[in-house]
């Protein structure tokens, strides 16, 4: 048999639960535009029933917990895609800068090559003309300058990328520090059975940020998480963060070092991987091609120059037009220079007479001979332009694709975890009505109690 006090308690449980649910709704509305916030949901369960003789009575409602609504697998997909996008973004930005050196139609290496050979063709029409000879030296100088400037621009870009690597490493260290701290707070809260949803949201947000910088794998345990790079280097374990370091090397760029181990080449995602790919692969690749072209061209021209005769009829043995490129060609583009200053020393003649243009013709023919990669100078250069254009186009496509995927994933996250104001308004009304009704019940029971108290026994 039930009693009024018990009924009152049941009514009160409704009041409390509804108040808690209302608070959840209020918190959701307040955080409706907080980035990374996952909506919270009150978990209401019926109270344990009491059995009295043949009857079973409910004991009201219990607000068991406030649960954050999130999909762990989706979160980790987002983190993975964020890594991909971080990498593509960094790579694309770098490649676009590189491409600028190959976009202009005047003053670039291609037009400098054309101008150089054209000056030789002009000289060929009047081989003893000093101003035409000077014209060839000037064009050769412009060609060397075009190579020098492009190589210098690419080197500067590499230096900037390296600086960016160092900065990114310190950003990563800050984030892992914060995540380790949050891990501690979360496990403290869960140890005492509290909802750590807000902290988990913050941590998710930080892991997202970290994912845009470096490839992160998240290993979830009961209370805390462990973060590693995809090759297994530990970043965060529980409450401890492991610092990465950017260590300068002899090659004037910094290696990324974790716990004494060089992991530079093993990074696969995030901004850091994109920066490193541009710094260590893309730009050095373009530079190596420029070096091949510069050294091939200089060698071929010198070869012809040193077998001809100058204006005074002297065999030009050992009198190079371009300073001989370094052995193996490394650094040839950056160091290309004109060795000849006296236009009369240009070996235009093939028979020793000042009016002969035979050697100029031979020099001009280099324009159509293989000097690098079994290709003519212009063909080889157009190949370089194609290569860089293709890299940028591919990086753009991949970046767009991963942006799109990420957008869809975020949409999906929003559809699961985002705060909907309509929903919250409906909940508000619902909880308010329930609260009102429970309050009404309390009033009614209170009336009934009055009735009981006022009862007179006769």
């Amino acid at each position, binding site marked *: 048999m039930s009693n009024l006090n018990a009924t009152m308690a049941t009514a009160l449980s409704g009041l409390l639960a509804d108040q808690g649910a209302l608070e959840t709704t209020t918190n959701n509305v307040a955080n409706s535009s907080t980035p990374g916030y996952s909506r919270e949901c009150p978990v209401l369960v019926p109270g344990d029933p009491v059995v009295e003789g043949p009857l079973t009575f409910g004991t009201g409602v219990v607000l068991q917990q406030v649960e954050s609504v999130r999909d762990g697998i989706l979160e980790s997909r987002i983190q993975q895609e964020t890594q991909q996008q971080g990498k593509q973004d960094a790579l694309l930005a770098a490649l676009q800068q590189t491409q600028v050196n190959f976009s202009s*139609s005047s003053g670039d290496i291609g037009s400098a090559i054309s101008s150089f050979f054209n000056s030789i063709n*002009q000289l*060929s029409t009047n081989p003893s003309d000093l101003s035409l000879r000077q014209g060839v030296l000037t064009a050769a100088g412009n060609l060397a300058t075009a190579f020098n400037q492009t190589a210098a621009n690419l080197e500067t870009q590499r230096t900037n990328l390296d600086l960016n690597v160092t900065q990114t490493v310190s950003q990563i260290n800050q984030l892992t520090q914060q995540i380790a701290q949050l891990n501690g707070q979360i496990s403290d809260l869960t140890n005492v059975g509290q909802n750590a949803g807000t902290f988990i949201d913050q941590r998710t947000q930080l892991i997202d940020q970290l994912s845009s910088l470096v490839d992160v794998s998240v290993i979830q345990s009961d209370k805390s998480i462990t973060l590693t790079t995809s090759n297994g280097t530990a970043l965060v374990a529980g409450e401890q963060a492991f610092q990465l370091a950017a260590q300068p090397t002899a090659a004037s760029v910094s290696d990324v070092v974790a716990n004494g181990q060089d992991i530079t080449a093993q990074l696969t995602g995030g901004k850091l991987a994109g920066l490193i790919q541009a710094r260590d692969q893309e730009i050095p690749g373009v530079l190596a091609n420029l070096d091949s072209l510069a050294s091939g061209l200089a060698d071929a021209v010198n070869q012809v120059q040193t077998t001809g005769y100058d204006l005074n009829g002297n065999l030009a043995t050992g009198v190079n037009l371009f300073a001989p490129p370094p052995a193996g060609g490394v650094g040839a583009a950056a160091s290309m220079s004109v060795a000849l200053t006296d236009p009369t020393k240009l070996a235009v003649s093939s028979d020793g007479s000042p009016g002969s243009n035979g050697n100029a013709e031979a020099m001009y023919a280099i*324009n159509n001979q293989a000097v690098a990669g079994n290709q003519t100078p212009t063909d080889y250069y157009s190949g370089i332009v194609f290569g860089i254009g293709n890299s940028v*186009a591919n990086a753009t496509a991949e970046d767009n694709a991963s942006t799109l995927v990420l957008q869809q994933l975020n949409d999906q996250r*929003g559809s699961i975890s985002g705060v909907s104001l309509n929903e919250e308004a409906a909940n508000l009304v619902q909880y308010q009505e329930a609260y009102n009704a429970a309050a009404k019940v309390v009033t009614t029971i209170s009336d009934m109690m009055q009735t009981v108290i006022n009862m007179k026994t006769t």
Partner: protein
Amino acid sequence: MRVNPNPVPDMLAALSETQQQQQTAELQIATGKRVNSPSDDPAAAAVLVQNQDQTAEADQFLQSAGSIQGQLQTVDSTLSTVTTLLNRAISLGVEGGNGTLNSDDRAAIATELSGIQTQLLSAANLSYQGNYVFAGTASQTAPYVLDPSSASGVSYVGNLGKNSVTLGTDYKLATNLPGPQMFAASGTDMFQAMHDLITAVQSGTGVDAAMSELSAAYASISSQRVFYGNALNQLNSQQTYLNTQKVQLAQQETNAGGADLAAASTNLAAAQTAQQATLAAVARAEPMSLFDYLPQY
């Protein structure tokens, strides 16, 4: 299914995309180029590099052809003078061969012939822009010098070098004939013939032999002169070819990297419309929610 309650990121992405399309179309219209960076079309960018080189090369070939043309024309007109002089010498030789002339008359004719000889020498030492054109490749010194020890009274100090200049892909034009090949081809030396004629007219003997010598020299020079006529003709047709090639290259450049202005304008209009529509949608996105309908107290 629950929908994402926050449409703003999607709208911003859409806005940025239409903005990007708009900028691309604007750039194409402003520059007239479809390929403004190699990444716009890497293959076309590579073609454009080669096209640019070929265009610059064709321009250079035309410029070189122009330089050579001046030289060839000067040489040709000088050779025309030479044949006129030789004609006059032949007429004088016929006159000098007349047995009724006295020695004074013959001396007068011989003097005139010597004058022609001097003019021929000057013609053979023709210099164009500081280069002696009949000197072979030894073009810095006058090739024909007076030389009393020589049988003809003149000796050749040039060489037999020839130049040719590249004026097209796989096309070279020979630009000079050394003096001996011009004036002494097939064993008949113009200066020797003149020298012999002058001596014969002075002495009154052997004029016929000298005359046939001179006629042979005249015929030989006339036939060698064709070299320059041919060269000029070839030069003309090469210039025509190069100009055609330039037109083709320009066409190829437009095909490879030029913007389709009609398409670009259409794209621009479409992007602008999309941009405006998206903006309007974003402006209205600030949602009416159920909260607006809750009773006011």
